């Protein structure tokens, strides 16, 4: 509609008629809608009037139906630093289950919505800490409606002041008796907290601190005490090691430090300096899956093999007999390589047994690894619990010597079930807990503990490293930091924040508080000194263990392990983690007894698939003494014949809606706090019942297809394209590459061309990226039943393939027919030969996308920047795109996952919804979704660059998975920028496209897996 006069909105417009048009690269299609000729006339025609009337009525009607409107209320007084729509980042510290990370917390409108490792911190210090999948998921635990909302006395609400008064009175009464006040805590790395504790012990004389980590590294601490005279844990440098020999140490999973995966990856660049990794283990671990050579071995034999290496390195004549000739050859080769790489090798053991750690120390000492690959000056403070201390404490409790117990951040009744009966021996029981778990529900007082994202704190995780933890949200509930409790009970009225600030100046000396708070960390100087390896240790080993441990075929071993997703189970009420598949078994929402194919056959136990593809398994009675658990069995290829595995972290009774009733509690069998239980347990099949598993992957081999391309280092050094032969199709033109036969016009990316490269040599399959993707993209949790039906919603999955002993050449050679060959190909290799590969698969953003062609409503289309885009609003849910996707990465909203009574957590309650990323649509029922390459981040970065009038810098745009992948396996960037990392990756001889014969022209490509192996004759 037009009036006669024309007003200018700004002086720019006058004389610059194109000004307005520059706003949009393309003209808005208004002209076709409004007849320009007529609008320029001084009146609105009747037709136009009717058009406007019709349009506005239709628009009003349409906008009023569909989605319900949720009102948002604007700030009355807007905080200065918060701009709605713009994220704020705060540096902080994560420390849980002995995993440390310096983190960046992303907040939107005052809500923390995701965490990631602080890359600045990582740049400044080599290889310490880092978030794992549990760390990435921890942001969801903040919004867990199962958290304690106020302090409790005898499970009833009490105010903080009353609680303080009552506890102070009780503690003072206890002072008069001889009984101890025990502070039972998991490892504390906060120097300020430790200072408060020592102050507390000054006030309450009979106070003692007992450290207890459910999964401790007591063995290493004690061994080091014996070897070096001091119980410490050194930091390891897997990046400096050229030969890595690991005995049961799952260092890429949960062994010691979350930085090991990152370090390990640094040594895995194919080339002359690529490390060589041997793994001896009983269960198939994440680390074993990545090894160049993996030998399944039971724990007793592992010790023998260690001794063999030790003896051989010392050139001892009295060597242990290795009966398996093949293994002997491997060991001899290892010894030779170790000697060749003196000072650049690393032997580690995951055993909780001190004697194993002693031998490992002795070998490392012999190889001069201390001060090169093992740094005993920069110590790790992440583990301080020593088993004997805890055992003494238990004895004290039994003898009625403990009057009060204050439990900090520990679910002791769950982690040490027999403690439940001993609680009656203690008069005053206090717990600092985030939820009313198995322990807290038995306490006299429960001090509701704040989540770490609501708390102040500091940390000294390693020698010379100081980091700060800051709250990124006001406490959601009436909760306090643990430290505040102790301060109050000492009648110190100073708030913990002020206390921390004053303590900071003592800790960090000359550093500025503001800068440290901003950066999240600062470094301190520390003294370096040489430790002397006690010579008696080697002698002791020779004297005590010169004869091998006899193990017969009848011996069985129950090995208690922890999954990367669940750890010791502190976050078991986190649905993201429950739904994260175990990297090896791909089972979600469960723990189970892993059993070797050999033993399964022996006991007549089975796993089988039912009509809908779901996996079922037999259930056994696992008996150890008077403890009996009903556990489903999972037959695990690659596992040593006589070993059984059971994961910690499950079987909660009071874990919350998510955790309760999932799996069984492996801590019931944690006798003597040893991970390995030899003999003494029995397994008996229960007839007539079966267990339903929820697996995300039900076929386990590549069926002879070229999916993960693989080569050996030797071949690679000869020819970098080995294992990655260009695919050629026979055609009338002769042999051509598939894209020469394409009927399609190619998309020409205009400004950017977003590509991703995934290095299969660096990806270790840990799954942190899957959780980071969950958090970034509001991926819903669907629950066990749905996962079982193969309806998981993960935008990014990690495929795990086992090798098979059958291949096409072998079949030809032996005259095996195709039907029989494919049957055999489905079977994983025997345990000795099993190799495992991992492949993260997300939407490949094909440039000839099969999904785009088939959508009848054009809901999935190609962007000018090479992305395959999904328009949720336009999708009508025919699922044709899903069917036609060769990679099967599309995910359909089978139900309304955001408001579903079946899953009243995460997205389905008001608190859980606070974790949602406001930049990403929550998808409705009936639409298809998939990886978008974090388009919201791309857009934001582009806008930032535009505002600043510059080009987008390489590495500036990050996908959530790339950020989460600390091994650097994922590289994302603009392939049109010839200097970018991705352009270089694209030209790399190892680079290939998945299923390139289909000529889908993916924007995601993979780099061949190179194993550092050669045939051992």
């Amino acid at each position: 509609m037009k009036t006669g006069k024309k007003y200018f909105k700004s002086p720019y417009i006058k004389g610059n008629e194109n000004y307005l048009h520059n706003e949009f690269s393309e003209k808005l299609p208004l002209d076709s809608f409004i007849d320009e000729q007529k609008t320029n006339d001084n009146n609105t025609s009747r037709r136009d009037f009717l058009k406007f009337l019709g349009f506005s009525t239709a628009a009003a009607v349409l906008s009023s139906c569909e989605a319900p409107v949720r009102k948002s209320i604007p700030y009355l007084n807007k905080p200065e630093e918060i701009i709605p729509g713009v994220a704020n980042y705060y540096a902080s510290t994560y420390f849980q289950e002995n995993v440390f990370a310096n983190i960046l917390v992303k907040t939107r409108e005052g809500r923390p919505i995701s965490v990631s490792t602080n890359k600045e911190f990582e740049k400044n210090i080599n290889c310490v800490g880092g978030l794992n999948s549990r760390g990435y998921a921890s942001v969801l635990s903040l919004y867990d409606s199962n958290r304690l909302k106020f302090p409790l006395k005898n499970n009833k609400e009490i105010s903080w002041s009353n609680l303080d008064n009552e506890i102070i009175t009780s503690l003072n009464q206890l002072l008069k008796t001889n009984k101890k006040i025990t502070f039972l805590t998991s490892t504390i790395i906060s120097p300020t907290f430790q200072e408060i504790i020592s102050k507390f012990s000054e006030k309450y004389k009979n106070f003692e601190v007992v450290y207890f980590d459910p999964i401790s590294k007591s063995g290493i601490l004690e061994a080091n005490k014996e070897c070096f005279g001091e119980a410490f844990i050194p930091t390891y440098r897997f990046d400096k090691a050229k030969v890595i020999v690991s005995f049961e140490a799952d260092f890429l999973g949960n062994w010691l430090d979350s930085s090991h995966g990152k370090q390990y990856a640094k040594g895995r660049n194919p080339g002359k300096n690529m490390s060589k990794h041997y793994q001896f283990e009983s269960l198939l671990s994440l680390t074993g899956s990545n090894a160049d050579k993996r030998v399944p071995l039971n724990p007793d034999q592992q010790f023998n093999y260690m001794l063999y290496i030790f003896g051989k390195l010392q050139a001892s004549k009295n060597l242990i007999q290795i009966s398996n000739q093949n293994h002997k050859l491997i060991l001899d080769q290892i010894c030779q390589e170790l000697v060749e790489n003196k000072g650049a090798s690393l032997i580690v053991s995951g055993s909780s047994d001190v004697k194993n750690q002693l031998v490992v120390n002795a070998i490392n000492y012999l190889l001069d690894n201390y001060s090169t690959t093992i740094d005993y000056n920069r110590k790790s403070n992440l583990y301080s619990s020593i088993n004997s201390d805890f055992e003494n404490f238990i004895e004290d409790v039994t003898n009625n010597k403990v009057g009060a117990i204050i439990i900090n951040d520990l679910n002791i009744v769950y982690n040490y079930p027999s403690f439940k009966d001993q609680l009656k021996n203690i008069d005053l029981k206090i717990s600092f807990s985030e939820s009313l778990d198995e322990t807290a529900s038995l306490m006299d007082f429960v001090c509701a503990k704040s989540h770490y994202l609501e708390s102040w704190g500091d940390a000294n995780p390693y020698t010379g490293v100081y980091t700060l933890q800051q709250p990124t949200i006001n406490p959601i509930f009436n909760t306090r930091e643990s430290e505040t409790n102790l301060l109050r009970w000492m009648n110190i009225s100073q708030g913990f924040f002020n206390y921390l600030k004053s303590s900071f100046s003592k800790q960090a000396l000359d550093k500025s508080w503001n800068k440290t708070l901003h950066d999240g960390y600062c470094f301190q100087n520390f003294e370096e000194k040489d430790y002397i390896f006690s010579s008696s240790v080697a002698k002791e080993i020779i004297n005590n263990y010169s004869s091998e441990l006899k193990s017969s075929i009848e011996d069985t071993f129950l090995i208690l392990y922890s999954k990367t997703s669940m750890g010791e189970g502190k976050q078991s009420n986190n649905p993201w983690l429950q739904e994260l598949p175990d990297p090896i078994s791909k089972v979600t929402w469960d723990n189970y007894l892993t059993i070797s194919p050999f033993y399964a056959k022996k006991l007549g136990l089975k796993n089988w698939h039912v009509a809908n593809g779901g996996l079922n398994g037999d259930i056994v009675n696992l008996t150890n003494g008077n403890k009996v658990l009903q556990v489903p069995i999972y037959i695990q290829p690659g596992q040593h014949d006589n070993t059984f595995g059971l994961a910690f972290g499950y079987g909660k009774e009071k874990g919350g809606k998510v955790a309760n009733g999932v799996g069984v509690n492996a801590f019931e069998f944690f006798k003597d706090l040893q991970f390995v239980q030899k003999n003494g347990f029995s397994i008996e099949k229960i007839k007539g019942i079966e267990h339903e598993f929820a697996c995300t992957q039900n076929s386990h081999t590549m069926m002879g297809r070229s999916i993960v391309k693989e080569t050996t280092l030797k071949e690679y050094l000869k020819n970098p394209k080995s294992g990655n032969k260009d695919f050629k199709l026979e055609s009338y033109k002769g042999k051509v590459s598939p894209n020469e036969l394409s009927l399609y016009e190619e998309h020409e990316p205009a400004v950017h061309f977003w590509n991703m490269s995934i290095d299969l040599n660096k990806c270790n399959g840990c799954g942190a990226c899957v959780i980071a993707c969950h958090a970034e993209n509001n991926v819903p949790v669907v629950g066990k039943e749905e996962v079982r039906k193969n309806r998981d919603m993960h935008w990014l999955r990690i495929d795990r393939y086992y090798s098979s002993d059958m291949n096409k050449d072998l079949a030809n050679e032996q005259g095996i027919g195709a039907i029989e060959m494919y049957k055999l190909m489905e079977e994983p290799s025997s345990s000795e030969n099993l190799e495992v590969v991992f492949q993260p698969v997300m939407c490949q953003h094909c440039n000839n996308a099969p999904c785009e062609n088939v959508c009848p409503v054009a809901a999935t289309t190609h962007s000018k920047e090479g992305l395959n885009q999904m328009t949720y609003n336009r999708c009508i849910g025919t699922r044709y795109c899903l069917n036609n996707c060769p990679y099967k990465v599309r995910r359909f909203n089978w139900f309304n996952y955001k408001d579903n009574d079946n899953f009243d957590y995460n997205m389905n309650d008001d608190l859980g919804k606070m974790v949602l990323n406001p930049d990403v649509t929550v998808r409705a029922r009936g639409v298809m979704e998939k990886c978008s390459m974090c388009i919201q981040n791309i857009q934001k970065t582009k806008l930032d660059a535009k505002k600043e009038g510059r080009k987008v810098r390489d590495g500036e745009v990050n996908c959530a998975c790339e950020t989460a992948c600390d091994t650097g396996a994922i590289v994302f960037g603009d392939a049109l920028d010839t200097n970018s990392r991705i352009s270089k990756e694209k030209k790399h001889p190892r680079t290939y496209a998945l299923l390139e014969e289909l000529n889908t022209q993916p924007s995601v490509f993979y780099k061949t897996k190179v194993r550092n192996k050669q045939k051992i004759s």
Partner: protein
Amino acid sequence: MYRSPVREPLITGKKDLHDITEDIARPIETKANKWWWSLFIFSVIAMIWGFGCIAYTIGTGIGVWGLNNTVGWAWDITNFVWWVGIGHAGTLISAVLLLFRQKWRLSINRTSEAMTIFAVVQAGLFPLIHMGRIWMGYWIFPLPNQFGPLWVNFNSPLLWDVFAISTYFSVSLVFWYMGLIPDFAMIRDRAVKPIAKKVYTILSFGWSGRAKHWQRHEVMSLVLAGLCTPLVLSVHSIVSMDFATSVIPGWHTTIFPPYFVAGAIFGGFAMCQTLLLVARKVVSLEDYITMKHIEYMNIIILVTGSIVGCAYITELFIAWYSGVEFEQYAFLNRATGPYWWAYWAMMTCNVISPQLMWFKKLRRNILFTFIIALFVHIGMWFERFVIIVTSLHRDFLPSSWSMFSPSFVDIGIFVGTCGFFLVLFLLYARTFPVIAQAELKTIVKTSSSKYNKNKNE
């Protein structure tokens, strides 16, 4: 009755024109018997159950079906293709046989066209309800809209389906109705009850039986027959392109269009056979649907069944000959994988069972014919199931291989459409002239039949 010296008569029972009128009008003018009622009630219950399942699906989500991330279509599209296939024989009988001047079609064309329309109604349900957001379903039509520059995707075979099915449905409906007009007029003229009279008056569009009306009627029939003939080929060709244009091994096959058309005729004739065998018994039309008709249809079933069998074997051959490992595995997996039973059910029912029709004795045996027709229904349903589910469940990456098993809703909806189909058909049988009597009368040679009658007396 005129008797050809070499051909069997197409109408038996010494009918004259009035006899035909009486026979055709009888079901409409008399009350239904017990058989009709019991079958009707049974079908209505099945239909209501099916509609309940559809409502549950729409209200809760597609998740109530047995589908998953790997198998995105299963019973829904299987049923869709099955019903579309059944809806194929009608046009073939009425249009193609009309152009070829096959008079034997006259007794069966009305019912087969009705079957076509009712089957296409069932078929059309599935593409609608399989959508995740059926309430946005109108977006598949190229409607001018206010959503910005949004338009349908003409590359998508699903869109071609929309056009193909809707064209086929509308042309078939018009063609069918054209033929019905003179017959409705006949019933109108005989009607005594006022409401019936009124209704049939409206339905017969003022037909007066004038020569001009007849002339236009015949021209129109020919024109529509000409229009329908390409549709016989196009509909199922296009349906087959849903699969043929994709990349999935087992779907990506150029043989699909002819193979699907042959399969559709095969399945359609079997359904026609089933319905007619029941109808001729229940409504006493033995004189009009004679053994000769049944035999002709059996021959068509035999021929198209053999074409389908050849197609199956060609597919296997090409999979082997192509040298593509995915293709080879897909076909081996069909025959020997977890769904081997579906493949062999298809093979037995579609390839082996019709071959028995080579024996004249068997193809003229009503019970045997009926059983074989049922076998063909089962076989053709499994053919679509095999193509859809066994191709999808194990495609390129073994990591996403999966299985499918139907939920009670999947089964309920299928049973419901069978019920719905029968309800429509049973209502049709009692309210519509089930044989195109006006046309049929053209092959009754009254004078000679009188002559014969006299001679015999």
